[in-house]
């Protein structure tokens, strides 16, 4: 399935997306694509609409109009079973990691298999051999294999975020949405988390949409940078071409 996608095929496609809360416009006519294997950074100050965008894409919030495609899934109109199938293909990375604190790193990565495993197996916490192998390989990929049996709440922030990425890998996601994944990490951990995100995007042809507020991280780790200000796209260009003027426009007050 993954092998049939060629680079540059848009797999996340947002068209004319709008969202308002009351009379405040939060997302104003957003349109952009993310290709398989591509990392796109959404750059914006807090309140620019980054989180709302992510919530609309996963349908935790409903947008007012426009279209959202994740692969073949038209996210705005799906419901019930179809929606949960579509969501199971999206790996989500959160600022606060959202790991289950008292479970081991391995058990947290196995949570990525919850959608695929029968309910009785989850009740007994007996995952099939294949799923456990998948989880261990994912931990290995993010360099956390030696911490597999440590409790999540005993890990550092950077380590927890790497476990969260492993969870998305175990989920075999075709799309990864990361909402401010490094906002509560120190610079070194932030770089390691972002470079893992970039590498897995390349290796597994995953489309990665990541919101950030640090320009230098966006330029260093993303292929493209989209600037968001008060819900409007004010820049969309290759990371290499991102200039000082764009920076000022995005963060000007």
């Amino acid at each position, binding site marked *: 399935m993954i092998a049939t996608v060629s680079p540059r095929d848009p797999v996340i496609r947002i068209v004319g997306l709008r969202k308002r809360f009351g009379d405040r416009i939060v997302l104003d006519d957003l349109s952009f694509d993310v290709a398989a294997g591509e990392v796109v950074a959404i750059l914006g100050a807090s309140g620019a609409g980054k989180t709302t965008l992510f919530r609309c894409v996963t349908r935790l919030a409903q947008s007012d109009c426009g279209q959202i495609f994740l692969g073949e899934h038209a996210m705005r109109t799906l419901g019930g079973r179809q929606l*949960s199938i579509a969501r199971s293909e999206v790996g989500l990375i959160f600022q606060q990691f959202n*790991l289950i604190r008292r479970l081991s790193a391995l058990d947290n990565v196995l949570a990525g298999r919850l959608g695929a495993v029968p309910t009785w197996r989850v009740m007994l916490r007996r995952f099939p051999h294949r799923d456990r192998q998948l989880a261990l390989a994912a931990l290995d990929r993010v360099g956390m294999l030696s911490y597999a049996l440590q409790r999540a709440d005993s890990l550092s922030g950077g380590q927890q975020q790497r476990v969260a990425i492993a969870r998305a890998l175990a989920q075999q996601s075709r799309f990864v949405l990361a909402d401010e994944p490094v906002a509560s990490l120190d610079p070194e951990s932030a770089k390691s988390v972002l470079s893992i995100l970039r590498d897995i995007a390349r290796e597994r042809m995953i489309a990665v949409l990541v919101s950030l507020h640090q320009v230098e991280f966006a330029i260093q780790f993303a292929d493209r940078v989209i600037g968001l200000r008060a819900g409007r796209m004010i820049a969309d260009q290759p990371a290499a071409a991102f200039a000082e003027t764009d920076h000022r426009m995005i963060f000007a007050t």
Partner: protein
Amino acid sequence: MKHEVEAVYPDPARSWIGAAPIRFVATLLLVLLVYGFSLYFVDFDVSRLWSGLPRLAHWGAKAWPPDIRELGVLIERAIETLAMAVIGTTIGVVIAAPACILAAQNITPSWLLYTPMRWFLNTLRGIDSFIFALLFVAAVGLGPFAGVLGIGLHSAGTIAKLWSEAIEAVEPGPLEAAALTGANRLKVIRYALLPDVLPNLTSITLYVWEFNVRSSTVLGVVGAGGIGQELKNSVDLLDFARLFTIILIILAMVTVIDQFSAWLRRRLV
């Protein structure tokens, strides 16, 4: 540019008791009124206590030395009391487990189930195990079984309420993350919620059990088994030496259980 404060800020008005005098006087009057009425209704009378003191002292004197001839029987009754608390609390847990899922706002399948379940649990909690035991003695006859049922019903309400509060206090993020991997509600509860709250739920259960040990010591008074039955017999026969032994046994038992349960709970969380 000057840096001195130039504006004149009006000093916020303060009164010496921190509130406006009228409100203070009104509050004081209300409190006095509540106490006046309450003292009137309870027939509070220090002189009666005073005149009753010699009788209490006389009984106290008769209680020494404690009568330990029936120590074996009394200890057996104390063990019966403990067993009642264990089984009663367990019945409470069995009822509370499904109930608290419906009664916790963050995991309830529907508000249509949530609200009636809350009412039902409040009713169970509002009726003391003593009253339940009274009813069950009439229904199933004298003995510890009636007491166990009474403790079970009352505990079910208490445990389910405390459990659902512990569940509601859980961080929503990890649950949301698990649900978004495509897991159904049951999987989310089992995998993401339970490991997080289990130590808390166990601690609550131990606390209720500890409470039940104390409350089941009196259930015997209504004929629902345990050491309370012996206590009532001794009072009825004015056998104060035996009564003293019983009180000592209860005191020892409750102290040991409290310490043990507190120690277990500290290790859990």
